[in-house]
């Protein structure tokens, strides 16, 4: 059976889009929910990055392009729904999500052999955090001491990447074969 990502059957075409919509909806929900947690770092809009699991998932099942699109759409629509669209937090979330998605896409293509899904997830999470820090630093010059949260961000990225990565692998192992993926 053709791996479903490369299938051209019309039913599959539709299914892919439905799946995408479902994943996007889930991503938005997670994004909005994690926004309600108190920020661990005094950066407005700093998020845990839990919804990144869905980005990874999308990339595995629907391709890297879909994954990137999901990341961007999730950030913007999520901020829109949460009512924070025009706040700096939205910009940080968008930038973080986008860069993280790009890093994950790149890693999936090139770094797959040495790194497993968990490692890729960790990379994505760290990229997400660092991007948020960098954007915050560039935009909000008042918060001068931001740079020194670097170690915490590494560790947080590690942890959240680890968790999301493990979940992703778990799901992938269960669902992958059914959908014809390795």
């Amino acid at each position, binding site marked *: 059976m053709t791996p479903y990502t490369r299938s051209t059957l019309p039913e599959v075409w*539709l299914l892919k*889009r439905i799946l995408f919509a479902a994943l996007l909806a889930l991503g938005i929900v997670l994004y909005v929910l994690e926004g309600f947690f108190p920020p661990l770092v005094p950066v*407005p809009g700093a998020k845990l990055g839990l919804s990144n699991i869905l980005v990874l998932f999308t990339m595995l099942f629907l391709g890297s392009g879909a994954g990137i699109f999901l990341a*961007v*759409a999730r950030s*913007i*629509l999520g*901020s*829109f729904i949460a009512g924070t*669209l*025009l*706040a*700096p*937090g*939205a*910009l940080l979330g968008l930038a973080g999500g986008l860069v993280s998605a790009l890093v994950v896409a790149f890693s999936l293509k090139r770094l797959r052999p040495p790194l497993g899904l968990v490692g890729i997830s960790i990379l994505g999470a760290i990229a997400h955090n660092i991007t948020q820090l960098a954007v915050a630093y560039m*935009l909000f010059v008042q918060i001068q001491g931001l740079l020194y949260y670097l170690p915490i961000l590494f560790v947080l990225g590690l942890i959240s990447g680890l968790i999301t990565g493990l979940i992703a692998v778990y799901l992938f192992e269960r669902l992958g074969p059914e959908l014809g993926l390795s």
Partner: protein
Amino acid sequence: MRKTLSLLKIFVFGVLASSLVLIYLQGRVAIVQEEQYLLGTYFRIKAQSRSQDQAHQAVREAFAEAKRLAEEFSRTGTGSLGELNRQGCCAAVQLTDDVLTVLEAAQKYRELSDGAFDPTIGKIVDLWGFTQDWDRAGVGRIPSEEALRPLVEAPRNILIDPQTKTARLSSSAVAVDLGGIAKGYIVDRVVEILKKHELESALVDAGGNIRVFTLRSRRVLWWEDRRPFRIAVQHPRDERKIIGILEIWGDRALATSGDYQRCFFADALGNIFPCRYADEPDKIRYHHIMDPKTGKPARGLISATIVAPTAMEADALSTAVFVLGEQRGLALIESLPDVEGVLVTEEGRILTSSGLREASFPTELP
């Protein structure tokens, strides 16, 4: 089906794109803060605007006006007030509009406070050593009864003729001291100038005489949204602490009169020491807010903070309430609409007026 999904795609892209454009459009707000030493204190202005230039321009003009007025209101300077005091009794002196306005307001507050606020006690205040160069001396002196009595008992009046814009002092016992009201007036004038520019909000702080205003409700486009100004009240007995924070919306002013601002200690033997915020054992504190009826520092309250629509009102009322004391002071505050206050008694009890119930102040000094 495909068409619907393509439309959906376009819609989503549309939302995405316009959101990005909107995010980009929100500009950064410029905050300009400057301070100058004027009127014996640091004068700080913080202006927030979308335009850096407007903010700078506003602040520049504001300080220019403040400087001009500071000279006007100097008790001994070259302005008309100084002239009035130099003339003494009893000739009429020409006044500028600013000084005239404040003198009339001062008379009004004198009546309103039943004499607690009194602009004619300049000579009494001088006797205690709280003169223009108190800052350099740092201490005052305790005047003798014989020196005080004639000044306290003499009828002290300023006779103002609004038609000719002149005033004269009723007796040689009078020297005009607008210290408890002039700073407030200057703050108000500064705010008027700031309002002429395109500012979103501003804060003027003249050594504790504060006025704030917000012109535009920065609601949709900037993340700070609408937030109140948070102004703290100084702890009268500890330089490092505050006793509470007031959330001020809109256009309001605050002023505090305290016995720790200008003061000195004296022990039983009559030795004089510089004072501190904290009390010292075996020493009595003498401060600069005189009770016009006794000619001596008012007792009962150690700090009186007033919130009012204008800085001049807040300034005058804070002095008046301080002198009036706990009961009459609170009564005066409650009798005036739009005026609120926080009082601290000598025993350390903190009282707030009815309009400040939500503000979280402790009942005792921390």
